[in-house]
């Protein structure tokens, strides 16, 4: 019996996940709306002065996007677990880590990339200084895949639990701390007119490392939680 090629399996998985998302395309907007709402709360909470908002803009955008990503993480494996296709994925003869990497990629493409796309708009709402804008975009381009990869490992551990929302936050947020520090560090350096290469390179190094390790860890975690 032949199982088809690895490339074929990855392509089928990508096409399936994208088709599923397209059928429910309204849901894909929710993380964006959430991030917008969170950011809109800050001027109400601390006053509308542009200097004050501009000072905290980059950090606020980062945290709002991080939280939006956290909320959407839960959906990564939920529907697959419910209809049984996750078990088929684990049983498949192809390397599970690679298949999971495909799933994480689709998840990043459909939840994190729209968030990155609205980041300039959100930054403008908080009077983010002009020169920081490109740095913020670069930071987000590097850190959102990192967040998705780290988050996927923790989701794999909580898969199958009925109410995993708060627990997932408890597991994921300590792991997000270094990413947030480097991302905010780059934005602060840009705001103070300092060179930004070092934190960006750190983020890139973290991304390279977790691109290799996170799918493997995710596969191991998934095998524990649905064994």
């Amino acid at each position: 019996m032949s199982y088809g090629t690895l490339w074929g399996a990855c392509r089928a998985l990508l096409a399936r996940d994208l088709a599923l998302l397209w059928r429910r395309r309204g849901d894909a907007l929710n993380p964006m709306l959430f991030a917008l709402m969170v950011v809109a709360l800050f001027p109400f909470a601390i006053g509308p002065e542009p200097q004050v908002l501009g000072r905290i803009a980059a950090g606020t955008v980062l945290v709002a996007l991080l939280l939006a990503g956290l909320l959407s993480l839960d959906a990564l494996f939920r529907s697959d677990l419910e209809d049984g296709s996750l078990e088929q994925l684990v049983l498949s003869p192809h390397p599970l880590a690679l298949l999971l990497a495909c799933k994480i990629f689709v998840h990043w493409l459909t939840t994190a990339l729209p968030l990155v796309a609205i980041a300039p708009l959100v930054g403008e709402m908080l009077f983010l200084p002009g020169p920081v804008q490109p740095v913020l975009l670069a930071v987000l381009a590097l850190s959102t895949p990192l967040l998705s990869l780290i988050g996927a490992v923790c989701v794999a551990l909580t898969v199958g639990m009925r109410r995993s929302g708060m627990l997932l936050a408890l597991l994921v947020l300590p792991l997000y701390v270094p990413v947030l520090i480097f991302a905010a560090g780059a934005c602060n350096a840009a705001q103070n007119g300092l060179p930004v290469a070092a934190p960006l390179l750190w983020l890139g190094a973290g991304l390279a490392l977790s691109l290799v390790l996170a799918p493997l860890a995710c596969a191991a975690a998934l095998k524990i939680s649905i064994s």
Partner: protein
Amino acid sequence: MNPLVLWFHKLGSPPYFYRFAGRLVPWFWAAALILGAIGLYGGLVLAPKDYQQGDAYRIIFIHVPSAWMSLFIYAFMAVNGFIALVWRIKLSETLAMAAAPVGAAFTFVCLATGAIWGKPMWGTWWTWDARLTSELVLLFLYLGVIGLYHAIEDRRQAARAAAFLALIGIVNLPIVHFSVKWWNTLHQGSTVKLFGPSLIDSRMLWPLLVMAIATKFVFAASLLSRARVDLLELESGKEWARAEADAAEGRA
């Protein structure tokens, strides 16, 4: 087989471990109490005042051993978690999970005593300093492990998932440590060094080291007590657990 190896293999069996740990626990508590009393007497009464901080520095006899223990117990938990995941030894799962609440408690004590000391010395309860922040993240990691362990119905699966999380955490800890160090630092550097001369007066050093050993015994005693209860619960359907329960009932 070599008797030592044989004994080690036997120790992996829950009933044998249960009885063995039961014999050790009272001794460990006694050692912890006696050493703790000696260390505290040495630290609070015999050790001289600090020329700058006066008597307020004496909190380090609790604070520093707790900080050491918070890291030591995390390492212990991760090593046991690794053994549990690789060799599927039931006892290691139990030990790793029994260590987590003790470690969280030491981390909390370390943070609380640090805050109490920080108020008169730094003029603030809390500051976003590198060491404080990484200790706080360590506490969150402990709480995550405990939370995951209690959220999964099946005990053994829960232990394996939580052990895996502990292993991810141990990869994360140095990254957190160095990233926050780069981010902000106020806390003093180490004065007690494993290699090379320590920068602390010997009259202050010996109570500190005695306290470090005392906290090790507190950990060992409380770990074994917890592991015994967990084992009894895990094996409640087995013959030996029922026999133990009957024996306990007979004594009561």
